[in-house]
C-alpha cells in the first residue's frame, strides 16, 4: 500500500512519469512541455529526467504535433501529444479524424497508432475565449478514436497510464478546473489489475434518481447529491469515465432501479454526449422510466466571456432543478 494525497495535475504528472519509465518508446510532445513543464505543469520535470529526445518542445503547430506523432508511431514510438488548450485542437482536427482515427481500419488492421492526445478541457477558470471549451462530441462521433476523461486524482494517475499502454488512439480529456483538487491515490499496483479504462463507475450509490456526469461535472453531480440528501432524495451518481466506447451497462442497471435519469455535461446541449445517452437509455430502459431522460448542459452558444461562465456552466442548482423536473413529471 502506498497512498499519496495528490492534486489531479500532480497525479497526471506521476502517471506520465510511470509510463515513461515503463516503456522507453513513450514520448511526450507538445508546446512548452519541456523546460516549462507545460502551461499547467503537467509535464513538470519530465524533460529534465528523460531528456529532450523523449520530451519534445515542438514548433507551435498542432497539426504538426499530431501529424508527426503519426509518423513516430509508424516508426514504433508511443507518442503522448499535449494540446495546450481545448480550443487549439482544431488545427489538428484533420490529422486526428482523417488520419489517426482511420489508419488501423484502412490498413486492414496492419498499422496501429498507439497515440494519446491529451487535452485540458472545460471552463470555470476565468479564461479568455478558446480556453474553456468541451470538444468531446467531435471525437466521440469519430469512429476509430477512443475518448476518456478522468474526474479524480486516482483516475488521473491510472487512466493516463492505461491510455498510454493501449494500442488504440485515445483522446484523453483532462478537466483543467480540477487540476488543483486533491485526493488519495493508491500508487502501488499494476495496470492489469486496476479498474479498467473503458468502464464507468458508480461514484455515489443512491436509490431515487440516476445522475450521469464525467470529467469536471462529476464534482458538481456529487455536490448536488449531497444537497439532495437534505431534501430526502437519494441520488446515484455515475462517473462515465469513458465516452467512446461508452460503458452504459451500470447506467441501465441504475436507471431500472431509480426510474429517473439526468445527464450533466459542460458541452453544448445539441448533439452532445447527453443526447446519445438519452437515446440509449430510452431504448434500454423504456418501461422503467418514470420521466424522460433530462439533460443539463452548456447552452448552444459559443463559450461566453469569463464573467458569464457561471451562468453558462451547469452547477449544483441546475442539476437539482433537473432532478426536481424529473420528479415532477
Amino acid at each position: 500500500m502506498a497512498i499519496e494525497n495528490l492534486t489531479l495535475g500532480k497525479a497526471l504528472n506521476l502517471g506520465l512519469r510511470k509510463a515513461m519509465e515503463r516503456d522507453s518508446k513513450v514520448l511526450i510532445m507538445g508546446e512548452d512541455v519541456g523546460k516549462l513543464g507545460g502551461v499547467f505543469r503537467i509535464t513538470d520535470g519530465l524533460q529534465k529526467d528523460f531528456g529532450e529526445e523523449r520530451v519534445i518542445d515542438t514548433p507551435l503547430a498542432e497539426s504538426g504535433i499530431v501529424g508527426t506523432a503519426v509518423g513516430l508511431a509508424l516508426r514504433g514510438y508511443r507518442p503522448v501529444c499535449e494540446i495546450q488548450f481545448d480550443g487549439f485542437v482544431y488545427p489538428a482536427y484533420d490529422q486526428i479524424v482523417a488520419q489517426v482515427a482511420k489508419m488501423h481500419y484502412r490498413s486492414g488492421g496492419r498499422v496501429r497508432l498507439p497515440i494519446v492526445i491529451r487535452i485540458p478541457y472545460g471552463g470555470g477558470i476565468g479564461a479568455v475565449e478558446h480556453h474553456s471549451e468541451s470538444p468531446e462530441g467531435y471525437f466521440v462521433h469519430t469512429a476509430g478514436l477512443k475518448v476518456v476523461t478522468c474526474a479524480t486524482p486516482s483516475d488521473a494517475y491510472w487512466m493516463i497510464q492505461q491510455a498510454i499502454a493501449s494500442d488504440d488512439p485515445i483522446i484523453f480529456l483532462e478537466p483543467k478546473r480540477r487540476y488543483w483538487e486533491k485526493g488519495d491515490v493508491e500508487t502501488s499496483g499494476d495496470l492489469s489489475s486496476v479498474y479498467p479504462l473503458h468502464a464507468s463507475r458508480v461514484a455515489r450509490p443512491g436509490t431515487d434518481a440516476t445522475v450521469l456526469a464525467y470529467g469536471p461535472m462529476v464534482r458538481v453531480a456529487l455536490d448536488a447529491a449531497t444537497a439532495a440528501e437534505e431534501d430526502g432524495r437519494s441520488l446515484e451518481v455515475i462517473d462515465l469515465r469513458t465516452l467512446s466506447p461508452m460503458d452504459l451497462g451500470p447506467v441501465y442497471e441504475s436507471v431500472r432501479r431509480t426510474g429517473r435519469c439526468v445527464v450533466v455535461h459542460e458541452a453544448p446541449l445539441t448533439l452532445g454526449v447527453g443526447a446519445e445517452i438519452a437515446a440509449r437509455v430510452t431504448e434500454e430502459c423504456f418501461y422503467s422510466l418514470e420521466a424522460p431522460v433530462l439533460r443539463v448542459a452548456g447552452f448552444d452558444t459559443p463559450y461566453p466571456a469569463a464573467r458569464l461562465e457561471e451562468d453558462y456552466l451547469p452547477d449544483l442548482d441546475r442539476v437539482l432543478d433537473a432532478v426536481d423536473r424529473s420528479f415532477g413529471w
Partner: protein
Amino acid sequence: MAKGATASRTRSTRATGAGPGEPEMVQLLTPDGKRIETAQDPYGTEYTVDFTDEEYRGLYRDMVVIRKLDAEAEALQRQGELGIWASLRGQEAAQVGSGRALRPQDMAFPTYREHGVLYCRGIDPIMPLGLFRGVDQGGWDPREFNFHMYTIVIGAQTLHATGYAMGIAKDGKVGSDDGEAVIVYFGDGATSQGDVNESFVWSSVFQAPIVFFCQNNQYAISEPIERQTRIPLYQRAAGFGFRGIRVDGNDVLACYAVTRAALDNARRGQGPTLIEAYTYRMGAHTTSDDPTRYRLPTELEEWQARDPISRMRTFLADRKLADDDFFAGVDEEAKAAAQNLRERVLAMPDPDPLTLFDHVYPGGSPELDAQREQFAAYLASFEGSGH
C-alpha cells in the same frame, strides 16, 4: 541500380539545363535525347550518373511498363471495373528516377498517384487497385515494403513522413552512408497546404533525414501553378532553411541523380532537401476530371515533345544501347503485365458485408460488436426469403 549517381560539392556559378530566363533546372537528358554529362544545382553540387547499359535499359523498361499499367487501369475504370483512377501519365521519369534512387532501407510516403514509385519498390501493382475498385481501403503493411499506404488528403502524409524521419534519428540511424532516409511525395497543389509547410518547419528545426519530392505537374485538378505560387516552388525551401532544387521531372537520369544525392545527404545527417520535379500531368487529374475545360490542346502537344519515355528511347537508340528487338520485347512485357493486371482486377471478390466492422479499433469495442451482431441478424433474416 548498382552504381548510380555521384554528386560532389563544388562551387560554381554555372547552371546547366536551364533556358534563358528560366529558373535553374538540373537536366542530364535533353528532350531530344541528348546526354548532358554533368549538371549543377544552384548550390554548385554537380550531378551525373554512371549506369551500366543494362541499368539504362532498365529505367526505360520501368517507364514503359508503368505507363502501360496506368493505361490499363484507366481502361478498367472506363469499363466500370474501377471506381476511379488517378493517372500518372507524363510523370514516369519523376517516379522511376526517384523510386530507383531509394535504397532498400529508405521509407517512401506516397500520395495516391505514385504507382510508378510503388512499382520501383518491387511491389505488386495490383496492391493499390483494391482501393480504386472499392473492395478495400488500399491497406498494406508499410514496414513490409518500406512504402506507406496511399494518402488521399492532400499533404497530410508530409507530416507522417517527417515524424517517421524524426524516429529514424531517434533510433540513431542517421549519420552514416548506410543510414536511413525518408522520401515523401506530393504535388504542386499540396504546397499551399498548412501540413506541408508545417512539415517543412519541423523537418528543418529537427534536421530530419527527409527528402520532399514535389512533382510539379502544373495543375491541381484545374488550377494552374500560378494559383499556388508566385515563385518557383523549389525556392520555398530557402525560407525554411534547407536546400531546394529544381530538376527536369521528365528526365529520368536527372531525377535519379538529384534524389539519390538528396537521400544520401539526409541519411548522413545533413537534413532535408526539397526537390521540385518539373513535369506535366498529361492525363486528367482523375478519371472524373475533364481537362479540356481548363487547358489548351497545344499545351499538351508542347509537353509531348518533352515526353520522358521517348527521350530515353532516343538516347538508347542513338547510343546503340538497345535495338528494335529490345524495344519490341519491352512492349510485349508491358502488354503482358497489363493483361495480368486486368485479369486479377476482374477476379477481385467483393468483401463480405460484415467485414465493414473489422479493424476499427486494435483493442475492439463492445459497442461495435453489438452493432455487428445486430446487422448480422438483420442480414440473416433475409436468408431463405428468396431476396
